């Protein structure tokens, strides 16, 4: 048996014809944060549901804190906390009542559960709303309450499934601060996210998951190194000309690259020939008469990593019905700008 807080080997799960997990391996050392990164439908939630005993795997094995997720589910539940994708709070109970209830279900004595509940509300700046029903809470407050509920049992290992999905930028930053605090105290955390910057900000190690398989694993820097060298980032002045510009410059690098027709942004991995390719790009675009709003060489982000690894953007699977296949990306970019 390994010393990992979470140890997963060859995990498989299918739902009818859909293979949600196709042999996932993961190791999370104690007191570290693993970011499980991937688009919707990649299998992140399925993995979390298996590790928190909500689903049985079809094949493979997994232990959490040394407990087998199938055979020792009962003991396992004592040492974990889960905050799922919805803010799973009873909206007709007050904040304090919600936490007390969860505490009682961990079999903490009533007075102690109440005290812990109040403590958590205080810490997450919900004390003023402690005696209001959760119905009256904002989305960010509900998420904080939900996260609080997952902490009532003092879990050794915490699972957060997309903790900031659907939050406005300010609530998202607040959530990040709270999560960073928790991690400082030594809680082992497995966090799923479709936001690359979120994994970058919070996780010690990142496992990129796509179509039920872990396709890459490493620190943020290691993953960025996979893209190799720098990225040429171009923004055209007129968005309508993004496609034409992409046609002119995408072939310049050693391979790959992507264009976002909504924002008029083009990213081209350029390896170590950055300066030469930049010059060539400017020349070509000028020849085509395409005006530029911005052009620069930058270090690769996880967005670029995801593109390189999967050939599609992180959110494209989730946003398939969007009129533009890059809708999700551009929305996310807007969010980033708001934060900046």
């Amino acid at each position, binding site marked *: *048996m*390994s*010393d990992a807080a979470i140890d997963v080997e060859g995990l498989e799960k299918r739902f009818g014809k859909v293979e949600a997990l196709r042999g996932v391996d993961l190791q999370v050392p104690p007191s570290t944060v693993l970011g499980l990164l991937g688009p919707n439908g990649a299998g992140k939630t399925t993995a979390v*549901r298996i590790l*928190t*005993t*909500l689903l*049985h795997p079809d094949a493979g094995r997994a*232990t959490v*804190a*040394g*407990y*087998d997720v199938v*055979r*020792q589910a*009962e*003991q396992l*539940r*004592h040492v*974990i906390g*889960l905050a*799922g*994708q*919805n*803010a*799973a*709070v*009873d*909206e*007709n*109970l007050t904040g304090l*009542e919600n936490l007390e*209830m*969860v505490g*009682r*279900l*961990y*079999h903490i004595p009533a007075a102690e559960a109440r005290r812990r509940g109040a403590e958590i509300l205080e810490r997450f700046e919900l004390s003023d709303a402690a005696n209001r*029903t959760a119905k009256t809470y904002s989305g960010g407050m509900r998420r904080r309450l939900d996260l609080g*509920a997952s902490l009532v*049992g003092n879990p050794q290992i915490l699972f957060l499934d997309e903790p900031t999905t659907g939050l406005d930028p300010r609530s998202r930053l607040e959530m990040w601060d709270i999560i960073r605090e928790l991690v400082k105290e030594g809680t082992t955390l497995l966090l799923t996210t479709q936001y690359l910057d979120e994994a970058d900000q919070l996780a010690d190690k990142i496992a990129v998951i796509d179509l039920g398989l872990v396709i890459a694993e490493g620190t943020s820097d290691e993953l960025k190194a996979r893209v190799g060298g720098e990225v040429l980032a171009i923004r055209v002045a007129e968005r309508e000309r993004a496609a034409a510009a992409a046609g002119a410059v995408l072939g310049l690098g050693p391979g790959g690259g992507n264009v976002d027709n909504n924002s008029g942004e083009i990213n081209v991995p350029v390896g170590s020939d950055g300066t030469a390719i930049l010059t060539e790009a400017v020349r070509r675009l000028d020849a085509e008469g395409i005006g530029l709003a911005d052009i620069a060489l930058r270090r690769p982000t996880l967005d670029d990593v995801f593109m390189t690894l999967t050939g599609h953007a992180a959110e494209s699977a989730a946003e398939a019905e969007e009129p533009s296949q890059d809708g999700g990306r551009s929305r996310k970019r807007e969010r980033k700008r708001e934060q900046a």
Partner: protein
Amino acid sequence: MSVTTSSPPKAPGFVANTVSDWWVMTKRNLTTYLRKPDLLVFSTIQPVMFVLLFVFVFGGAFELFLPGTISYVDFLMPGIFVQTGIFAATQTGVGLADDLQKGLIDRFRSLPMARSAVLAGRTSADTVSVGFQTVLMLVVAYLVGYRIHTSVLEALFAFVVIIGVGYVFTWVSAFAGLSLKTIEAVQAALFTVVFPFVFVSSAFVPPETFDAWLQPIADNNPVTIWVDLVRVLTLGDLITESDSPLFKDLPALSTLLWQSAAWAAGLLAFFYLLGVRVYRRT
């Protein structure tokens, strides 16, 4: 890591914890019940409306074939009590589907709490609501002339029968809620099943007046057996001494008792097992 146990021994406080979990969940459901005004209104106005509508709309027609010693409201109320118990139980499935959609069931299933507590707490709380609605209807019915013609003991026993039927149906409803997963589907399914089930019985109209092919169905419908039991328990001698053809096929009290108990126990066991099974793997 030094984990050697392969099957978990029951913790020392297993029974105490199970009872505590059940109580925490029951209390939660009762609390939320009181804080949902729409639900409270629905579950108080509806039974009252049923009493008043049936008594004043159908009452006149009933007078025509009931024996003179039995007033229509006395005949009708046992049917309406049982019907309300059954209808009120749909709330269980709706509540569970709601918890499921909000992710609360996932949270509960990830906690070290008794596997039975979510369902047991929900069905218990909803049964309290059935009791409350029954008492409320009793008061309203009393005001429009309803009377119980038997001893307090028999009347209390009739009350237990009504609550018992309601409890059985909270488990039917729980299974529906966990299987169908959305509030709309649960409501649609329960009403398509529950309506014919309740109407093709002796609840509102004596089965003797039904189309011939419906009569055997009605006679073997557990709702008929339960309603007949409540009727015998609240009308007493008025039925046994009546020579009306409406009551000539009515089984003896002892027969009604064991048939009622057998149906209730059978349905409860069946849907309890199904419900817990679905809960474990939802």
